[in-house]
């Protein structure tokens, strides 16, 4: 820069300096990792399918409806457990949805100061972080006694509905559902809250400007706009509840007997596997793998549905890829 015009020759080499072409090895590594990730899911599916094949060929689709699970006579049917899986998750949602949605609304509105909301948010995140087995332990010492104490009263008052009839047992479908509700609550809250927060403020202001009260705005405008996200939250929570293993295995009683009574021991697919796999042999292992395959297909399907709803919602509200 010192002397006016720098002659072109001052530069070491004019034009484009030639650089040897190199293969991006790192890219190959990254590609391989991606393929491996996809491969893992397929590998899991294939492994379990292979192990389940003997049971599949023996019991066929009757496995889904047959309610007898009898290792002594080598008769296996997952009907009761399938029922238990779906019903326990469904009851959990009945409890978790209103609560989770309330928390989501609470977190997205300014009823109480921000510090309180942050605390509640932290607490809900903590709920998600607590290990399943700790929920199970807590359930044994808190929820089971509660059910034993208040169950008979509920059974008597609601006895006109068949599912509430019968003697009340602590290790029951009802107990497991209560704890499951607590465990899926964070899922519902987190996704619903995101959906509520994503509702454009102009909609809310529009409702206020027309003289709506806060709750008229929430029920009339905000919840409907956020409903796809809330639906997705519910579906994903359902999937999570069905796959939940340890807490359920510790609380539901793991009974292979089919019953519709909520205060009776029951079983779920995941709980069945956790409970019996280590002692199983031969056809029982294969049948447990069949049950696992069933659970995998169901949860994959449910999660797929939830993910698709969620993706559509996001595309609508945010326009992300």
């Amino acid at each position, binding site marked *: 820069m010192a002397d006016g015009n720098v002659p072109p020759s001052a530069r070491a080499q004019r034009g484009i300096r030639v650089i040897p072409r190199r293969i991006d090895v790192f890219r190959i590594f990254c590609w391989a990792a991606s393929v491996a990730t996809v491969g893992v899911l397929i590998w899991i599916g294939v492994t379990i399918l292979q192990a389940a094949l003997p049971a599949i060929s023996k019991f066929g689709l009757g496995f889904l409806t047959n309610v007898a699970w009898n290792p002594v006579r080598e008769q296996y049917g997952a009907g009761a457990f399938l029922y238990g899986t779906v019903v326990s998750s469904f009851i959990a949602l009945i409890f978790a949805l209103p609560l989770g949605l309330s928390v989501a609304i609470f977190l997205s509105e300014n009823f109480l100061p921000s510090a309180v909301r942050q605390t509640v948010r932290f607490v809900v995140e903590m709920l998600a972080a607590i290990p399943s087995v700790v929920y199970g332990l807590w359930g044994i010492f808190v929820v089971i006694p509660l059910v034993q104490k208040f169950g008979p009263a509920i059974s008597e008052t609601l006895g006109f509905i068949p599912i509430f009839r019968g003697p009340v047992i602590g290790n029951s479908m009802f107990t497991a559902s209560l704890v499951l509700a607590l465990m899926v609550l964070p899922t519902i809250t987190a996704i619903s809250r995101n959906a509520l927060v994503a509702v454009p403020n102009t909609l809310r202001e529009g409702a206020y400007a027309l003289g709506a009260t806060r709750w008229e705005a929430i029920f009339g405008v905000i919840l409907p706009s956020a409903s796809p996200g809330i639906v997705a939250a519910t579906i994903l929570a359902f999937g999570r509840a069905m796959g939940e293993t340890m807490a359920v295995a510790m609380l539901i009683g793991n009974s292979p007997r089919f019953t519709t009574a909520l205060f009776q021991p029951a079983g779920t697919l995941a709980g069945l596997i*956790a409970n019996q796999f280590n002692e199983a042999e031969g056809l029982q292992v294969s049948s447990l793998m069949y049950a696992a395959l069933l659970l*995998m297909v169901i949860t994959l399907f449910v999660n797929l549905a939830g993910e698709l709803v969620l993706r559509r919602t996001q595309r609508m509200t945010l326009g992300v890829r």
Partner: protein
Amino acid sequence: MTSPNTPTQVSDKFFSGKKHKLAVLRSLGNRALTILCCLLALLTLVPLFSLVFLVIKNGLPLLTWEVFSGLPPAAGLKGGGFGNAIQGTFIMVSMALVLAIPLGVLSAIYVNEYEPYSRLSNTVRFVAKLLTGIPSIMAGLFAYGVVVLAFGSFSAFAGAVALGILILPTILLTAEQALLGVQTAYREASYGLGATKFQTIVRVVFPEALPAIMTGIMLAVARAAGETAPVLFTALFSQYWLKFENLDSLVNQPVASLSVLIYNFSTVPFEYQLQLAWTASLVLLILVTIANVLGQLVFSKKP
């Protein structure tokens, strides 16, 4: 103020009659719903407080050095602890991280930096989402079928494979978000200076994304430490320390873990074992909380 048509008169006229009554009702309903919503929200705090309180109350009395150094007592006996379970959890979580971090982070780099719109990348994103929803017990069955049967023994490695599968999507998805959060301007500046893709990723993009990736890894640690179902059929449980002699030690013997210890001891009729389960829960809860808080702190450090 003395004019006949003062504002107060106008509003008196306005705020009376049928319309006004309806407004009062609506406002009351509004307040009731607000209170209901707050109550329901606060209700969710009750179980958590109950849980944390019980874990501390029942777990604290035994929280002594003996618990960390001792081995689990045989049925009905007193004394001892779960040092081997802490060791096992630590070993398996570390191995799971060694397996899952490279896979997850490299996939995230491929998906976000190399081919954001390719079919493979979309598939990877989708598979990661599906893997997050897969029941954790599947990972256990898979590792049983692939590792335990192959080596002929329950092992730390089998447990680590199962846990690794479980945390892979967490790491992949948070890493992808972290990379997505790096400004395009940095990439452009780097390419504009003649950097290769690799140089851009390693020198500019990755360091920027690192804090957020670390958060994901800490979340994964918290998750892996608490999981039971995946290690139940893979690592099983052991009454003894894992004696590390060579790499074979990781594949030829069952290993204890905190979570399986809690599961095993939760249903036994012996008071001391139960207390150990509570204490193990306390230790696990503390570990999980530390991992979570650490993750959040690392993340919030980013300007």
